[in-house]
């Protein structure tokens, strides 16, 4: 049978899914134990017990210096920044995307500008943001917004333009004004697509968050990783990276579920 026709069953699919994760874990722990038998003080590939110990200390014991659970306070700080930045980006992208996508005049005015700004490398703007807005929360949130917003606007405007022309005409024959078309035709159909666009921008958003936290911060997941790097504390860094990955994955799953539950009509439209 040709490979293109072989479809794994439910159970096989599960094993296949688990396989790469398992292989990475095996490779890591094999390397770790090999290095540790050579040198028990090796810090590069810590064994599982030392990582568990580190997580216990970071997550479940009060830090004597700050009086808080470090991992929890880092997570709250990072998610706060990420959440507020993405909220700003999402709302702004929704409004501007619909305006640009629906109004040819607005497209002529802003379309090229948005395309150009989406090419600016956001990290190159970070020094400017630090100079102008200081080292506080604002500059970090601004970096994430600048990094995600232009792409989101551009993608969303394109999605609005992809709505069949017939629908816009049909709405007008039902007496809809421009405002009513935006409100009843364009926006409800843009919302599920906004979730797609947002999911695509989650990766860049995390990148900019960690970068901003690494450079100037006193809390946050990125800050912690770059802080303990000085002590080669791989037993902290690796669990933190895993934790960040898990958070990002959960947000992505959450958005996907939201899309399915809130817009039950969307799956069949996308399938077309």
């Amino acid at each position: 049978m040709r490979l293109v026709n072989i479809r794994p069953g439910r159970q096989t699919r599960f094993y296949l899914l688990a396989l790469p994760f398992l292989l990475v874990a095996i490779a890591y722990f094999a390397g770790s134990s090999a290095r540790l038998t050579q040198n028990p003080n090796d810090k590069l590939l810590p064994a599982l017990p030392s990582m568990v110990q580190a997580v216990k200390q970071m997550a479940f014991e009060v830090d004597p210096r700050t009086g808080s659970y470090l991992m929890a306070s880092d997570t709250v700080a990072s998610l706060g920044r990420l959440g507020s930045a993405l909220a700003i980006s999402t709302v702004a992208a929704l409004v501007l995307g619909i305006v640009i996508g629906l109004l040819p005049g607005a497209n002529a005015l802003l379309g090229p500008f948005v395309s150009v700004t989406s090419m600016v490398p956001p990290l190159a703007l970070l020094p400017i943001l630090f100079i102008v807005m200081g080292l506080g929360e604002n500059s970090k949130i601004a970096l994430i917004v600048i990094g995600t917003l232009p792409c989101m606007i551009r993608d969303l405007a394109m999605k609005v333009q992809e709505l069949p022309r017939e629908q816009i005409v049909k709405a007008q024959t039902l007496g809809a004004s421009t405002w009513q078309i935006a409100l009843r035709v364009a926006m409800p159909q843009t919302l599920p697509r906004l979730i797609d666009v947002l999911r695509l921008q989650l990766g860049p958003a995390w990148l900019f968050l960690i970068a901003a936290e690494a450079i100037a911060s006193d809390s946050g997941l990125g800050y912690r990783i770059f802080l303990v790097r000085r002590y080669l504390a791989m037993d902290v860094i690796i669990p933190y990276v895993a934790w960040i990955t898990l958070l990002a994955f959960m947000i992505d799953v959450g958005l996907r579920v939201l899309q399915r539950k809130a817009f039950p009509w969307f799956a069949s439209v996308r399938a077309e």
Partner: protein
Amino acid sequence: MSTIRFDDVWKEYGDHIVLERVTMEVEPRAFIALVGPSGCGKTTLLRMLLGEEQPSRGQILVDGKPLPAEPDADRGVVFQRYSVFPHLTVLQNVMLGRELRDAKFSARLFGAARRAAADDAMKLLAEVGLAGQESKYPSALSGGMQQRLALAQAIMRGPKILLLDEPFGALDPGIRADIHVLMKRLWNETHLTVVMVTHDLSEAFGLATRVIALERSRNRPEERERYGATVSRDLEIFPRRSAELRSSVQPAPAGTTRSGKEHQPGRPGALVLKEQP
């Protein structure tokens, strides 16, 4: 219920002439079928009636007044596809016209107004044979049901003119026959002037009061760009059909041949009529 008048209408895209010298008058409550080979400008003509495109010369008058340059609620439309809104349920699709009319800012009705609109919409849905489907999304409906919904949605807003762009072209023959019956009834019971683009001649002769064929007068390759299509045949169905008449048996119009075939691609000059049951 409106008189539509085409006054020497031309449509050109740059050097390319699509339609030329189109002059005709459509009486109130007529049911016009526009037929012709593909690329002859049937749909362009309909789009001009819709206000989506403007004639490059001449003008279109409705009840003596020039046609507004954009679509409005006086002219309802049903396209072959994408005529209903996929994000609204069947009931919401039909209610939309009322909501857009009565709630300028929120475009949504609440309370008693909403219930009244929903009642009217339910009656209309029952009329078009969609009772019991009101909470489904259009994607859950068959093609024929989607077009019934599109008709109900357009009629709910009470247009004077109904424009149909190959509305039943994608449907199976049996389903098409059913929806033809519905279309006839709606035309009889409302005050619509209907203009339908179709490539199905049996449909054209089975439904319309008048069949208008568009055709290019010159078809040599080097002439195609510079000569547009125009009205080549303007056939009144005989015996005359009018909106109030509720007859299901239509004898064959004079000058047409009969054929048992379900579907004949439209080629003017080869008029074929489906045997009526």
